[in-house]
């Protein structure tokens, strides 16, 4: 094991992508993560994505509703630096495992909670599935689509925000612990995750125009960047973007064999009829071109442009491969898989994928024995159904 978090033990009780992926960012920088899940398994295991977001950790299957399961969990806690959970507020308290109940005994414990909605919010008792938070936070209504009304976000935005808040919150608490010697309760939520992505759109000021009525306005068809999506030959698509930081050798219009209109601002100032004609000519020119050749020609001329690919085609991108972001993982259930790698790099102490997603209870026995239980005690837990070990019935 290597990485800056070597020696940090995380108990991961989360279900779903937000908590699990937040933990993943830490697991692959060297933390020793134990996923503690029910004997029936984390219910989100049905999703194929869980093979990615649950990797680099061991699995212990314990029934925390049973006395035996809770006692065994307490043994694991004794060596833990971090506990992460994603239950509705109050669930951990009812198990006797709430922050208040543990803090006195374990003053160095960093305890992270990431439910759907924050504790104390009127929505806190509502189910916190991602799409529900999309609806309740208004984010579905913020995204223009192909019909009026809310757009279901195929990218699970609340979770994809909260995952960062989980990792940042825990990392901050670990930094602070080096100064104070104390752990603390780190609380965030999927609702707070959605707010992360309002940075460019929800700014309200007393004087002058801002926010939803300017640059990033909600509009039909949607937005300034949507207008630089073009269809190429064979029904393939590109996203052309005019700047890449280097001085362009030729303009987009020149590459397309069209009269050069000038920059975006010149174009925007033209009369509507003239703009429409130019847009039609551009669309026709893009449709006549092979997508991959066109992307290459844009790049040769120092212009930004990328193929709009299916999600599973992302792994072919040469720069993504150069970044170490395309990994081969031998998954015990799926076989040889291609997945994303580590999305950020600490040059001074690089992390690594520490193994595939474990099977339910794959490490129940060794982890509990490490924590000081003997084999007979583990047998008793298994027999009582308070624990489950993969491969043992």
């Amino acid at each position, binding site marked *: 094991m290597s990485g800056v978090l070597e020696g940090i033990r995380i108990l991961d009780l989360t279900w779903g992508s937000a908590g699990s992926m937040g933990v993943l960012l830490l697991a692959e920088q060297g933390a020793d993560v134990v996923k503690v899940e029910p004997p029936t398994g984390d219910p989100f295991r049905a999703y194929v994505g869980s093979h*990615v977001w649950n990797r680099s950790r061991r699995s212990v299957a314990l029934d925390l509703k049973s006395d035996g399961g809770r006692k065994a969990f307490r043994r694991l806690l004794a060596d833990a630096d971090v506990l992460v959970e994603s239950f509705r507020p109050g669930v951990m308290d009812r198990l006797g495992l709430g922050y208040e109940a543990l803090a006195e005994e374990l003053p160095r414990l960093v305890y992270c909670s990431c439910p759907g909605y924050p504790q104390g919010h009127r929505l806190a008792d509502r189910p916190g599935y991602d799409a529900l938070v999309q609806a309740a936070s208004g984010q579905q209504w913020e995204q223009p689509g192909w019909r009026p009304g809310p757009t279901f976000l195929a990218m699970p935005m609340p979770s994809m925000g909260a995952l960062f808040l989980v990792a940042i919150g825990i990392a901050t608490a670990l930094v602070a612990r080096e100064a104070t010697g104390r752990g603390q309760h780190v609380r965030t939520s999927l609702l707070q995750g959605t707010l992360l992505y*309002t940075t460019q759109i929800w700014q309200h000021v007393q004087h002058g125009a801002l926010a939803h009525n300017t640059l990033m306005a909600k509009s039909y068809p949607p937005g300034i*960047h949507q207008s630089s999506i073009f269809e190429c030959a064979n029904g393939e698509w590109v996203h052309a973007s005019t700047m890449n930081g280097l001085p362009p050798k030729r303009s987009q219009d020149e590459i397309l064999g069209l009269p050069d209109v000038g920059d975006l601002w010149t174009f925007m100032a033209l009369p509507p009829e003239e703009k429409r004609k130019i847009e039609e000519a551009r669309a026709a020119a893009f449709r006549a071109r092979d997508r991959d050749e066109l992307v290459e020609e844009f790049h040769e001329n120092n212009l930004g442009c990328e193929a709009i690919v299916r999600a599973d085609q992302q792994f072919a991108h040469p720069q993504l491969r150069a970044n170490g972001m395309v990994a081969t993982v031998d998954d015990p259930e799926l076989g040889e898989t291609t997945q994303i790698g580590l999305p950020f790099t600490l040059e001074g102490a690089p992390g690594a994928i520490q193994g595939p997603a474990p099977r339910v209870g794959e490490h129940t026995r060794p982890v509990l024995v490490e924590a000081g239980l003997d084999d007979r005690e583990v047998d008793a837990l298994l027999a009582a159904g308070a624990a489950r070990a993969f491969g043992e019935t």
Partner: protein
Amino acid sequence: MLALEGIRVLDFGQYLAGPFGPMVLADLGADVIKVEPAKGDNMRPAAAPFFGCQRGKRSLALDVRSDEGRVIAHELVATADVVHHNMTKGTAPKLGLDYETLRAIKPDLVYCNTWAYGKEGPLSDFGGLDPLYQATSGLEYESGPVAEGNAPLYYRFGMCDASNALLSVVGVLLALYHRRRTGEGMDVWASLLNGGSVFTADTLLVDGEPAPRPRLDAAQTGFGAGYRLYETQDGWIQIAAVTEEQWSGLLTTVRRAELADDPRFATPADRERNRRDLEALLEPAFRTRTALQWSWVLDEADVPNEVAIDTVGGQQVLFDEDNVRLGLVTEYQHPVKGLLRQFGQLIDLSDTPGKVQGPPPLCGQHTREILAELGHDDADVDRLAAADVVYAAGDDYTERFSV
């Protein structure tokens, strides 16, 4: 004590993917100095995205391309814990702001570059904007969805910028943790390209073939009959009938209980295969009542649901009583724009809290204060300002800048 109290961050970034990370560090209590050109961050004219990435910082307007400017930047680096920026490849070395140069000044420095594509590799010389990475990651294709015959769809949240910045924050924090344990600094990086792919991390190939994953329908309502938006008499409701109990509860509530016995819809796999037929039966049912009425009866049947709300550009969320009380919202006076309201604290730390430290700074608002801390007296600052090495915000501000 604030969580990151005593940590000084120099933010040499512009636009979004650079400055957003340091803003998150400022919210956690770091002392963040935004070092921007004397003519201002290039994002200032677009005030909304600018405001979303700049609060809680002090601004030093400094021409780092001038010899004297570089000397001042280096004086500042000697006092800093973190240097963060999103310059394209080759720019930082030209300005004397590369890691090798700066670690000679501050050996335990944490240095972070948020790239467009990456540190090394075929496109590492290129900058780029958020939409390119909504393309590379598959987001635009899957959100169309193109597979259903629609055009690709761009998400207006600019999330790849944010993702890059947030990855950099995780990296910087872990490097700071390492530094507190070992005394060593290091070089950290993330990229827009990587940030985009985090959002489609549920994608994998099995033996080279794509594994099935949830797919959006052409009408952009959701992933299947039990996990989608339905139009009602007066609006839309999101359903999440994930378990078999919830599914049968849904059918009973919409008075389609007979479908539970229909072999076409017996299992989740059947319902996925015959999704269009099933949805064609449920859609008319939902149109017979209002969204609120459905929500009430679905609640009684324990079927997870939420009415999809139109917040009027975020106003309802940013003025929501619970969100305000819990600190999810912040509001302050901006010297030019009056009251400014935006999202607030997103992480609650019980022992060492964060703090939203104030509005986005004016360009050069803290030039005199920061230079004074470095030992430059007012006469020296006047001389530097006259030579256009620095700019200190003054009476001419609104002639020069919009925000």
